[in-house]
């Protein structure tokens, strides 16, 4: 629907597709959009038949930022609350166990950049544009970018992007670690969906365990050992692990259930 900002939810097999639909504002992360993301993510995370999620922006642009027209009315306390409330969808994205693939065409600026990097796997067209645009409006990066960006691109490039609000295109993004899979313009969604479908066939508990571990980044070797000791014995006893062994010896492709 043209004028109403929302997050459309669709299913393609075991993949839930969340489309930021706020075309008039170039899919800006308005209060309405952020609010709509929460139940959409909750539903996808809770549904055992959903094994992967794709997040995409309607009509060829990912998300151009926050809703600047409202910012001027925010007191410091209200401003803090608005940013603090974002952890509802950020936790669902980063602490959930269902892997998320971003499909980025056009602009991923400001809050849009943060949204893309809160995903596990970033697919982008080579002419997509990434920018930590916050500084240009007198704000600091939020949406978890201070945590997600350096772990992908290293401290030097992260500081440069965040402090000068420089624009990085998809191609450079692939070189420096922002983009995992680079596509031709117009192909990001198709590729993202294909990646998500592959993830949907993987053993869900195993994928979830990897995702859970990285939500605690950074950690050292001893922390890794502790996380393994907690989770691997249970995984070893799972039906999916037994199915994998059965399929291996029978030279078949395993079918994983998430149990």
């Amino acid at each position, binding site marked *: 629907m043209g004028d109403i900002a929302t997050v459309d939810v669709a299913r393609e097999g075991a993949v839930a597709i969340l489309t930021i639909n706020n075309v008039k504002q170039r899919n800006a992360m308005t209060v309405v959009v952020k609010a709509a993301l929460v139940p959409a993510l909750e539903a996808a995370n809770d549904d055992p038949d959903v094994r992967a999620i794709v997040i995409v922006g309607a009509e060829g642009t990912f998300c151009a930022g926050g809703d600047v027209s409202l910012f001027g009315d925010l007191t410091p*306390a209200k*401003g803090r609350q608005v*940013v603090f409330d974002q*952890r509802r969808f950020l936790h669902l994205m980063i602490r959930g166990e269902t892997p998320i693939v971003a499909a980025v065409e056009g602009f991923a600026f400001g809050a849009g950049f943060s949204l893309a990097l809160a995903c596990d796997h970033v697919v982008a067209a080579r002419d997509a544009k990434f920018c930590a645009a916050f500084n240009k409006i007198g704000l600091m990066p939020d*949406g978890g970018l201070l945590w997600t960006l350096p772990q992908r691109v290293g401290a030097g490039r992260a500081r440069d992007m965040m*402090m000068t*609000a420089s624009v990085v295109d998809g191609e450079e993004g692939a070189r420096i670690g922002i983009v995992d899979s680079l596509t031709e313009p117009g192909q990001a969604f198709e590729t993202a969906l294909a990646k998500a479908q592959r993830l949907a066939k993987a053993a869900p508990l195993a994928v979830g365990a990897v995702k859970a571990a990285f939500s605690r980044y*950074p950690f050292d070797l001893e922390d890794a050992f502790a996380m393994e000791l907690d989770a691997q014995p249970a995984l070893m006893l799972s039906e999916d692990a037994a199915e994998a062994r059965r399929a291996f010896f029978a030279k078949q492709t395993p079918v994983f259930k998430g149990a």
Partner: protein
Amino acid sequence: MDNSAPTVTRDQDGAVAVLTVSNPKRRNAFAPEIRQALSDHMSDIATDDATRSILITGAGGTFSAGGDLSTMQDMTPFEARERVRSGAGVVNALWASEKPIVAAVDGYAFGAGLSLALLADWIVAGDDAKFCASFGKVGLMGDLALFWTLPQRVKAGKARRILMLADVVDAAEALDIGLVDAVAPKGGAFEAAMKKAQALAAAAPLPNRLTREALGRYPAKLDDMLSYEAHGQGALFNTADATEGFAAFLEKRRPNFKGA
């Protein structure tokens, strides 16, 4: 005045404070006088509202060849420990800087020189520059926060060679591995650094101060950063610069940030 004494001079170019490390007889080796001078300048700059960014470079075409070996005669472990501990002062002065720092590296950034360069937010190298954690060559380990700064820029495989084997890294490789952010033609590092320093001086200062502070908390976990950004952003929403920023965005013009 003896201009061969180790020192750090300060010049001002508009809103950019230029700090030049000089120890000409020893290729700008990082003597105690230099540590002190840097700390003193950083103190002055902290209360100087006219300065919005800092550029650090070395005099005479080289950045810094490292610690001064001639001063490392026999000392007890405790004396040595105290010597290293006193280096923490300049590290903290740079780390706590509210104003962004760029480094222009020509020639050698060896040992403490490498550590110093890595304390900057943004580093440009002349194409003949060379980087080396030369500590290892004489039986020492890295200091001046090298083990905190280097792994944040350079991935583990290369980082281990640099730290444990004292590999010499040239400018092109330094760019490739993220050790530096840009490479300029020989002799051009200063100009490139100044351009970046001026861009940073024109950027909104308060958000960058908080960004620098947040990143200084590395290795913060997700929730720590989320809390930090919420509090920081709250404080920023009401600033004159944010109001100017929102207006400029909606009016589709360039913002003019004052630092308040």
